[in-house]
């Protein structure tokens, strides 16, 4: 490689990756020059994480090439140890070992630290980075990782990706590196990146803090629906221009608008929101500035929970489930989360979006998966009546238009059909409230339209629907949309106000972007365990 100094560090050409029916990355191409800091922006599910995982070889793409430091490889090849290519990645979920000391942690990353004084060698190389990246980090060599705050763990994680080790870093990929860092730490972090960039290290960053990208990076790629749609020069880009690119891009594309598919006019929702029904869910919100506000959900409404992923929607939705009574019309004591006190009248059924972990029972067939939540009304003398179970399953097969046989193993179905089965399970209960956790994630367009239809029918029959969605365009199916930011509801959009652009703009915050500081991955931290 004679002209390494002028060569691009990374060239991505025509990479695609499909998960089931979802095209997560669609013919994406971009380049990162030597010593360049670039950002990748995009709303939920734009394909940022996927493209970066194909770049570092964690997952194999379906097509395209990835050229790192002038050496091309097919994107269909996975790479076991990308660090040998000089590619380092810091993931959002931390990869530190809780029981190790700081210097031992450094040594695990620093393969060059050997010999009797391996700990101090490794600590010296980590501290060299830490002191510059986060002056006054206050991390001691002999601290154990589990004693450290999330912010300090994130500092260690970021710093260890710049340790020289045996193969010095050439390309560092950082996924939301500053989510737990405060303003001064963030500033010094970017100053360090700029300094390393001058030495020739290239960096790719994804973050929802758009201002950071504009202030510190050289170029920003905007992704949407798996495609790299625009490339903006940070010098001329503004927050508005990026937000606009993320949202408006949809209207430039030839993708069919979902409602067009089933011939229903979009304006169905223009009917005035239900205001006279009884209140079934009440969210009392205490925001950081001490204000309290009440949000009420009435019988028969369809309510959307929107915002960036991990900003408290899931927490609120789960709280509604936990606060629900066991039987229709019943009461139960309110449930508290960090920001909300939730009280509910009536029972609820929950449709999980994370089908693999929180939804399906993989060893069973579709019939057993559908009837599971309704077994109470299918039993006589303690035994499940096969005829009633069969009838219930068949009823929901036809109501939801599920294809195939009820005796097929659930794992043999496509993601969309599995999702329908989960909807059937929850709807068959006939509960007062239906809670949906991003039910259309990874589901094809046709199924989505069917789901929207179905939800409107259920609401018309008097079921209250609370719907957490990461796909902003589908929020137009809701009567009202609550937009979440940093754990609290910051806006309520009614009917036609709930446009994609409005949701995106609100979820990134108008002028008060500082609110996002120290937000951290809220849901991930509190609900996963």
């Amino acid at each position, binding site marked *: 490689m004679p002209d390494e100094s002028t060569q691009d560090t990374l060239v991505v050409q025509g990479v695609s990756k499909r998960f089931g029916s979802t095209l997560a990355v669609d013919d994406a191409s971009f380049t990162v020059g030597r010593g360049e800091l670039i950002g990748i922006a995009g709303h939920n599910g734009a394909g940022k994480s996927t493209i970066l995982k194909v770049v570092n070889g964690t997952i194999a793409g379906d097509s395209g090439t990835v050229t790192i430091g002038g050496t091309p490889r097919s994107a269909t090849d996975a790479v076991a140890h990308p660090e040998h290519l000089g590619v380092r990645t810091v993931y959002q979920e931390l990869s530190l070992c809780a029981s190790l000391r700081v210097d031992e942690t450094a040594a695990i990353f620093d393969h060059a630290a050997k010999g009797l004084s391996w700990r101090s060698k490794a600590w010296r190389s980590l501290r060299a980075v830490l002191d510059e990246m986060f002056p006054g980090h206050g991390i001691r060599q002999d601290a154990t990782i589990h004693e450290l705050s999330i912010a300090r763990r994130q500092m260690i994680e970021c710093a260890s990706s710049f340790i020289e080790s045996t193969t010095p870093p050439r390309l560092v990929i950082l996924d939301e590196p500053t989510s737990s860092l405060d303003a001064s730490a963030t500033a010094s972090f970017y100053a360090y990146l700029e300094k390393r960039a001058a030495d020739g290290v290239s960096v790719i960053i994804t973050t929802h803090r758009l201002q950071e990208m504009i202030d510190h990076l050289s170029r920003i790629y905007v992704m949407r629906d798996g495609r790299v749609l625009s490339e903006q020069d940070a010098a001329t880009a503004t927050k508005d221009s990026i937000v606009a690119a993320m949202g408006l891009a949809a209207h430039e594309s030839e993708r069919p608008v979902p409602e067009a598919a089933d011939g229903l006019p979009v304006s169905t929702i223009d009917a005035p929101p239900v205001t006279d029904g009884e209140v079934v869910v009440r969210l009392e919100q205490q925001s950081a500035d001490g204000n309290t506000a009440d949000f009420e959900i009435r019988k028969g409404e369809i309510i959307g929970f929107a915002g960036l992923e991990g900003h408290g929607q899931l927490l609120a939705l789960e709280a509604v489930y936990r606060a629900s009574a*066991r039987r229709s019309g019943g009461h139960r004591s309110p449930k508290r989360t960090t920001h909300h006190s939730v009280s509910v009248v009536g029972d609820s059924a929950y449709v999980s979006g994370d089908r693999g972990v929180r939804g*399906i*029972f993989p060893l069973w067939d579709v019939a057993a998966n559908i009837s599971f939540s309704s*077994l109470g009304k299918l039993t006589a003398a303690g035994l499940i009546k096969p005829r009633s179970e069969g009838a219930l399953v068949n009823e929901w097969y036809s109501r939801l238009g599920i294809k195939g046989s009820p005796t097929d193993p659930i794992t043999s179905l496509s993601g969309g059909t599995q999702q329908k089965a989960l909807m059937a399970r929850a709807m068959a209960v006939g509960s007062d409230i239906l809670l949906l956790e991003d039910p259309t994630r990874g589901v094809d367009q046709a199924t989505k339209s069917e789901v929207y239809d179905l939800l409107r029918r259920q609401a018309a029959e008097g079921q209250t629907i609370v719907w957490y969605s990461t796909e902003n365009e589908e929020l137009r199916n809701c009567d009202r949309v609550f937009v979440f930011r940093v754990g609290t509801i910051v806006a309520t959009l009614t009917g036609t106000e709930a446009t994609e652009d409005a949701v995106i703009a609100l979820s990134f915050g108008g002028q008060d972007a500082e609110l996002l500081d120290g937000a951290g991955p809220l849901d991930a931290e509190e609900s996963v365990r």
Partner: protein
Amino acid sequence: MTDLDTRLKTSPAESTKPGRPTLGAAVLTVLKHPATPAFIGMIAIWLAIGIIAGRGLVETISAGIIIATFLVIVGIGQLFVITVGNGGIDLSVSYVMTLSAFLACQIMAGENSNIVAGILVAVVAGLAAGAVSAVLIEFVGMPPLVGTLAVGFGLQTITLVYSGSVVGVAAPALSQFTTAQIGPIPIFGIVGVVIAVAFAIILKRTSYGRRVEAVGQKPVAASFANARPALIRASAYVLSGGMAGLAGVLLAAYSGGPSLGLGSSYQLASIAVVVLGGSLIAGGRGIISGLWAGAVLLTLLTTLANITRLSGGWQFIIQGALIVIVLALARNPMARR
């Protein structure tokens, strides 16, 4: 509709895999059923005994079914504990059996009129032991291994101290019951089959059983579908204790009276029959028909080893290796884990 009906009409224990109406497919379904290897193994060893030792086949199987019944009863409890998942395992069964054997025999004191009281005490003692395990595991948060082992050692000590002061005798009628035969058919063996069928129905055809399997597959998914994983798991430990208690008193009746080593071989064997029967060790799928076949297989294996004068060492090796080999070869339909 017809599809679903055929599925639901097959016997409960066999209903985990759907059946298609064609004959070839039906044969394939039977062959692919997780319990099939256990049945094949059982028959192979049964025939081997006939060929090697020249013993009557009927006589062999009827003796085998009687002795296997104790293992079936303990094994069912173990199966529920393993099926609720989360690393579930009950290592206290052998100690529960021994203690309840002593308790019941003291109460029965050789009198037929005390049979009901004796059995009741044995079962209640087992349920109580299981409840202690359940509290330690689900509410204190101990790993199942440690919780049940700790309870087991506690019971062992109680047994050691307590057994020194009492001499109990099983009620003669109960002893006769465990060995009685109608013609060539052992009554107690039939009891074992009936118990197995009853629990197969509980596991596959009641909402409790469905919850047991659901919690074992995906506890989080179950909790979002109106099941309470901690309670379901706790109930399995209680059930296992009760079953071990019942097995203990019956075994004492069969062998004439309690002894300190009464339950010891059942600790491994109860796990072995679950694994052999095609249930998943990680939980989520329990196969009681397979467990029954596995219990008979293991019993006949011991018979075969005795006939061929195989030393006790070999019997241990075969039992232990069987578990590890079956585990190593078994398919895991749950990709994760």
